[in-house]
């Protein structure tokens, strides 16, 4: 079976600055990959190329065994790639259900008007939340009244609600209390069981060692490490992150 994501020899320069010089990056089905590196190492540039926000100067992008060219985030989303943004990307004034379906609302014809099918969305949304074992005090109240961890869960539920195959998470646990962060990490582990692969971008190396199957380290636009979690130590990763690129 081909890898879910295969990025081959991706290069990108901004002016005179080489953001990525020939990076190979692979994600398999049902895999959690931790993507780490210092600020400016090229993590977000790589992810922007994967989601179609940026176009690579050189290199190939393969998704699900096929060569793809994503020209916009919409393209990558249609292929099943979702991004959970650091600032969550939730409308604070809307309910969890409304947020999960935002932009993809279920409607029905009634009396010649195309109206929202609230009941249908409520049922599907609850099912989905239950499937991910996310429990909220209420799915109907504005998400601004939920805790940080609960909101993060809603954002993840939103990203996985529509047959997505890959979810990219940017610092999903960064601003959370310890117990809440643990819940979010447990949720990431559960996604694997649902046939969703995850790329986890974070500075919290302990989280990576907790949930990732593999760790990819970038350093100044070059991949300096691609290590299975088993047998990898925090010291090794830190060494690669801060190490001089030869």
């Amino acid at each position, binding site marked *: 079976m081909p890898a879910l994501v295969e990025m081959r020899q991706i290069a990108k320069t901004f002016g005179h600055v080489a953001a990525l010089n020939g990076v190979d990056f692979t994600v398999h089905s049902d895999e959690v990959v931790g993507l780490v590196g210092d600020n400016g190492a090229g993590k977000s540039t790589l992810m922007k190329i994967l989601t179609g926000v940026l176009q690579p100067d050189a290199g190939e992008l393969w998704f699900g065994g096929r060569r793809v060219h994503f020209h916009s985030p919409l393209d990558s989303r249609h292929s099943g790639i979702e991004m959970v943004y650091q600032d969550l*990307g939730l409308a604070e*004034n809307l309910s969890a259900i409304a947020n999960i379906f935002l932009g993809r609302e279920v409607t029905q014809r009634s009396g010649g008007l195309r109206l*929202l099918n609230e009941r249908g969305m409520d049922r599907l949304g609850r099912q989905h939340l239950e499937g991910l074992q996310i429990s909220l*005090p209420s799915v109907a*109240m504005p998400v601004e*009244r939920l805790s940080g961890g609960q909101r993060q869960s809603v954002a993840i539920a939103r990203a996985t609600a529509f047959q997505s195959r890959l979810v990219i998470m940017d610092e999903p646990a960064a601003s959370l209390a310890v117990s809440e962060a643990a819940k979010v990490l447990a949720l990431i582990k559960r996604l694997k069981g649902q046939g969703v692969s995850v790329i986890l971008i974070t500075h919290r190396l302990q989280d990576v060692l907790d949930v990732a199957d593999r760790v990819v380290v970038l350093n100044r636009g070059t991949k300096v490490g691609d290590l299975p979690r088993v047998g990898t130590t925090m010291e090794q990763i830190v060494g690669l992150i801060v190490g001089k690129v030869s």
Partner: protein
Amino acid sequence: MQFPQVAAARGTLVQRIAPSQAVLGRFGPVFVVLLMMTVLTILQPAYFMTRENLTNVARQISSNAILALGEFVVILTAGIDLSVGSVMGLAMIVLALTVQMGWVPVLALAAALAAGVGVGLVNGLALTRMHLPHPFIATLATLNIARGATYLLSGGVPISGLPRAVRLWGSEDITVFGGTAVTVDFPIAFLIVIGLYVAASVFLTRTKTGRHIYAIGGSPKAAQYAGVNISRNLVLVYVISGALAGVAGMLLAGRVNSGYPTAGTGAELDAIAACIIGGASFFGGRGTAGGVFVGAIIMGLLRNGLNLMNVSVFWQQVCIGLIILLAVYVDVLRRRAMRVET
């Protein structure tokens, strides 16, 4: 997730507190209306509750209620439309002028509506295409342009004498339940108000576009991530606001049987006040059409009550200012209370 019993306990606690608060939050302004009506009935027993006075109030608040509705749709997106008062005046003059030029009433009414839609379109495009930094600026510009156009078109003098087909929308009553024990003569203008509010409420809460308008107000970024076309929706809300200001102008023209160039000067502030009293927030994404309706009624009752009490117009202005302060302060307190409990 790891402590289901804690989550469950908290869930029931929230559920127990939430309804009473929701009731207070949602119907607080309704209680204010009932309180005001009771006080006015006690203070002016011979006058306030008469049919003449009530239909008069209903007719008087119609234009402001419709302006407020359009303003509300804009405020939902965290925007503001300062031009609605001028647009109302412009629509009124366009209507009176085209009638004077011999247009049939239907076309004259359509021209007035088109004037409103046109200014709304300019507002929306100035914001989304010209990328003016804040709707305050674009609509401040059209406030002046539309008012200037109104003076230019009218030559600065009122144009009076409208045919019945134009007047009746703003001035006549319709008999409902005719022939039964509860026969009531109802101002047509107020029926139009109710119809528009019901339509707007369905649009905002039951359609995809309405949901997106709320989302844009709550978080433009989130809406954009979700693939919502923000520019298109923003243009739409300013067009709705302009169109409703046009309708408000038609009703006002009908009520006073003329078009006068100063009509609607400062009316945008009353519309904004009705929105805020009715629970809308300048930060966007909050409030309901029903709340704004109540807000408009509160404004109308206040003016009527103060008139009946022979309070000077100057003091009325002070009172309305105080009410705005109070309404928003109560809202702040309510939100703070909600924070603590969850």
